[in-house]
């Protein structure tokens, strides 16, 4: 079971990041979550959602979601956008099990862009 992304449902509100950061730190920030809204290409409106686990990243890219093993990205070399993101420093998603609640990013998303499978 893991958190997956329906990329085109996402509207970029970042509530998932806030919920996840609250889960880890009991505070609101946009730097410490296991789920990351990729929004660094604003003029192109290229936006995705990435979920980090211990072994891989779920890349919710707008052109199609994919799971990518950590390390595979470095092997592939340069690439743009949400498809190329090793977020190794952040804590891996634990489905909010450490807090004894259901995954909060899934609960809080207003558009159902995140789901459990």
């Amino acid at each position, binding site marked *: 079971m893991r958190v997956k992304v329906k990329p085109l449902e996402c*509207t970029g509100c970042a509530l998932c990041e806030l919920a996840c950061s609250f889960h880890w730190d009991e505070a*609101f920030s946009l730097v410490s979550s296991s789920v990351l809204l990729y929004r660094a290409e604003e003029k192109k*409106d290229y936006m995705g959602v990435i979920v980090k686990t211990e072994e891989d990243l779920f890349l919710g890219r707008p052109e199609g979601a994919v799971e990518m093993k950590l390390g595979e990205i470095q092997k592939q070399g340069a690439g743009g*956008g949400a498809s190329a993101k090793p977020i190794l420093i952040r804590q891996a998603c634990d489905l909010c099990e450490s807090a004894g609640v259901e995954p909060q990013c899934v609960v809080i998303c207003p558009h159902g862009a995140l789901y459990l499978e």
Partner: protein
Amino acid sequence: MDAIYCGDTLIVDLPSGKTEEVGFGQEMLEENGPGLAAGLALYREHEDDDPLVIGSGLLTGTTAPSSSLGFVLGKSPLTGEPAVSPLSLFSGAEMKLSGFSMMVIKGDSPGPVYLWLHDGVADVLDAAGLWGRDTWVTTDAVRAEMGEHLVQVVSIGPAGESASKLASYSINYWGSGDTAALGARMGEKKLKAIALRGLGMLDAEEPPGFYDKGKELLAKAPAWNGLNKVGNGLGAGDIDAWLKPIVHRYRSCFACPAACNTFVKYNESPSVMESTGVEEPGMLVTGAASAAWLLSGGWKAEQACRAMEAMARAGIDLIRGARELAGSPLDDSGGIDNAVGGLSGEEEAGWPGVERFSEGLFGPWVPPLVAEDEWLLANQIGYVLGICPIYLLASGIETGGLFGLCSTAAGIELDSSTVAGMFS
């Protein structure tokens, strides 16, 4: 105070280029109220120095629904009276996270400058190389200089630099809803841009209580895509259907369930989802009013959006500009650029076919979807709490729950009448 606000009030003295920090604490909040209410107190305190006051609401940057709002407060060149314009998208939240609760910008700089606010550090930087550039070039340049694409850039274009009464600041590349020409005030101050970035955290006084309440409100908060929900109540036409052939995606402001911002692509197919070599494929339509004017004026969607892009680049108020362009639809890009360049600024902001309220502090960025007194209260609550007043009105969300959040956020008890009292 630590809860919910990030730091002190920054005082920027543009003539000297110096900055100082003044405490922003619980006392300030309790005496004046949070958000725009505190901003008004600061404005009055520094009124002789012709200030621009910039800040965020109590709940901005949290999981309260639509908690994206910051504000810019200053004397509007259109009225000679204090007026407030919004900081939306991610700029309001980034202001909160920048490490300063409020900022007072006093006087005029001798040469072009921009402000760089980052994690409690305020730098006044030379903007000579940016002066004369449009807001897109400016935003790109500032982000490249800071090495981070997520820096929020509130900037003026040539319109603001010449203190045109049509001027409006842009938020990154997009229209801001500044209908008070505060972009012109920035230009008079030689303040080219304000760049914001913060890697901090916001604490609530009762974190689990705040989070759970916010989540409850979000679960009940209406969500939608598109601009119709905002425009329909005013008979503004079917904006969403008009834009649909060129719509790429819908975007929300920070923490907002409503994705009314509409990204359209006309320099590549809107169905292209991957990041391609086309660097500027289109634009983000951030307001229903400007779209409504151009739709009602017979413009085709693509040309209307190109016109809005040109206005956003130049730092022109999209609402007033669109109103002036409405009666003269154009087909070619060259004609559009010329038309935008020739705007006179004679038109007032407003909505097609709707009489404008006598707004005073607040402008017609917020649509008159309800009676004037309700509209006024929605603005007051929105700017004090940091919740988008457009979302408050269009969603019908109960404000009682938001006031409940204020208590768990900062131990402050508020209701509609106390908020209204902050403005009397």
